């Protein structure tokens, strides 16, 4: 997976994948949003997806999380200790239960709830109390409630928001909202976490905190991370591997440093140099 110039079709299968996206094509009417996209992510890896605006990054995320169903291809998820499962055709909440959690590019918190309650909703999607148990406050319901409170506090602590647990989500600063969204996603006990532009709109200090947080999630919780990000410094520093999308196609993949020098990538971002050779011009 290291050679930049390696033809993309000849990707060698990864030994222990967490997710494999195999030749998916996603169309909306006449518009092709993703065209024959193939990528694999190893378990425990931090994989970044980059590309100019409209390249299909969020469409890829929506396909992996079950919001969209691509017309062609397959997406397989490999939960630890369980057989691989197809993601396609599953409802969004069922995909989440498989172990894939996500955040949104334009933050989608439950804004009238407190930070604590936001995280608890994520945690509680893994619990079992039904309406009868809740109405009668049965003992096991109270046990689950206490357990949920404990984990919510832990997670808020983990993302550094413990002191703001009782503030309304909408009243938190931008960077804190991004971290709260991550905490809510972590509450659902994912094995794969999809972060959609987590650094967008955050200041340099918050970016550093975020970088540390992503590493922590990956290292301490053992969660694989798929990351969409425009901030190249962040991508270069946290990602183990980078996939570049442009016009719905994978145009390059490899180590961050290699991808950075790839002429196709440079061209996608900056356009063709005016007097360069048509193909493969070294810049």
């Amino acid at each position, binding site marked *: 997976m290291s050679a930049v110039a390696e033809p993309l079709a000849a990707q060698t299968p990864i030994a222990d994948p967490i997710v494999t996206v195999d030749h998916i094509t996603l169309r909306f009417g006449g518009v092709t949003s993703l065209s024959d996209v193939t990528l694999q992510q190893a378990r425990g890896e931090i994989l970044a997806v980059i590309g100019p605006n409209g390249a299909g990054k969020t469409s890829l995320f929506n396909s992996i999380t079950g919001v969209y169903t691509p017309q062609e291809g397959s997406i397989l998820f490999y939960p630890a200790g369980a057989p691989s499962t197809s993601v396609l055709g599953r409802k969004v909440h069922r995909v989440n239960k498989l172990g894939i959690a996500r955040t949104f590019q334009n933050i989608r918190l439950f804004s009238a709830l407190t930070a604590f309650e936001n995280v608890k909703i*994520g945690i*509680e999607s893994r619990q079992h*109390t*039904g309406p009868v148990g809740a109405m009668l406050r049965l003992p096991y319901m109270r046990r689950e409630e206490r357990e949920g409170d404990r984990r919510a506090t832990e997670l808020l602590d983990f993302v550094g928001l413990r002191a703001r647990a009782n503030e309304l989500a909408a009243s938190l600063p931008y960077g804190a909202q991004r971290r709260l969204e991550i905490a809510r996603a972590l509450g659902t006990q994912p094995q794969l976490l999809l972060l959609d532009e987590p650094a967008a709109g955050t200041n340099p200090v918050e970016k550093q905190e975020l970088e540390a947080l992503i590493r922590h999630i990956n290292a301490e919780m053992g969660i694989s991370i798929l990351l969409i990000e425009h901030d190249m410094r962040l991508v270069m520093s946290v990602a183990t591997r980078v996939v570049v999308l442009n016009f719905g196609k994978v145009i390059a993949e490899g180590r961050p440093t290699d991808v950075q020098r790839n002429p196709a990538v440079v061209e996608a971002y900056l356009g063709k140099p005016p007097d360069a050779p048509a193909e493969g011009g070294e810049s």
Partner: protein
Amino acid sequence: MTTTATPEKSRVTQARAFVADDRVRKLGGCLLAALVVALMTGPSGSLTSPTHGFRASLLSGRVVVFLVLGVALWGAIVGRDAIAPEVARASAVLRRFNVLRDSRSRYPAYAALLALAIVVPHLLSNFWQEVVVDQIGVYVLLAVGLNVVVGFAGLLDLGYIAFYAIGAYSSAYWTGSLPIKPPHHFNPFVSIIFAVLAAMVAGVILGAPTLRLRGDYLAIVTLGFGEIITIYANNLTSVTGGAQGPPKPVPHFSIDLFGIHYKWRLENLPYYYLLLVFVVVILVMFRCLENSRVGRAWTAIREDEVAAEASGVNTYKYKLMAFAIGASTSGFAGVLFASKIQAITPLSFLLQQSILVLVLVIFGGMGSLPGAVLGAAVIQWLPNGLRTYIKKEDLFLYLGALLVVMMIYRPQGVFPSRRRSRELAMAEAGMTTADAMSAPTAGEIQ
């Protein structure tokens, strides 16, 4: 432009500007509305003097009252910006005295309210006791149940009264009052189980296909369902007894267990206490529900369905759950109503009643249990308290006016839930939508 035409023209433009003024137009609208109301609520004409209605309504002193009311409404609408902050300040002051919000004073306050609820009916006349049981008590149950659907889960149900009908008719069936006979006659207490189950099943059957729809569609389908049930009750004479209602009266409740014999009769107070027990139990249970995993999931769905789904919440299941719980509460109220009033007819289950229950919930404050109780008590008291001043058939007219004024000054209701009022404030500031109903679908998830 000649000099002679100028004063003429300027007067025309002045007049135009005057009419174009928003406030003047609104005054015109309010006065017109007042005239219409005066005409509609006034005496009607007859064959011998067809203009009697107009003369008695518009050319008598009666019209003055309505014109004054019209001007008052105009003042309320135009002065909104000036008055609204005052209202907000006043409610902030009142909030400081709201003992229910402070956890230390909350339980003594509830105990005091309960004591009041136990004592007060003894002091009322027979007429008022009947109002409290038949109209307030039963509708408190209905409002609390609809509050789960509309307030907690944010689903607009316009056919809610159908489940009330299903509960009442199920009870009539299992106690042997309908033309078709059940396999075994039960005590009305036992029929509660069957009626609640029937209402719940009806809720699930209606909800299963329709809860995949959004907002407006759901409202229309439930509206249709409510109409279907009423029409069945009316026209399926061989099963329901038709427009006259069940041929035999639904029996009163009775206990005959472990040596305890008691029979509820025509008196209101025994029914009142029975209702009080049920209402308190249901309120406590729903309060627990609100603050549980289930209640939070509902809030999540209401606020952002996409995010809720992405956080692992099975939104469809929870909506169906809210629907089923609301329907069962409605069915339960139906049994109590049928047994109390004995002679039920399809007239108790009209669309108007569905809307009335919705009004109770909105007036009290969506998503707020004390609000639902308060809404039922106030709105159901109004027609009886004002019965010497207002004709019964005009009631909805005034109720409508009350709601319009409420929506201008206090859209969150008299006693709003904290979450709901926050949501409304944020929706007004353009930060979120206030309901799952109006949220955009998957198309623009980013």
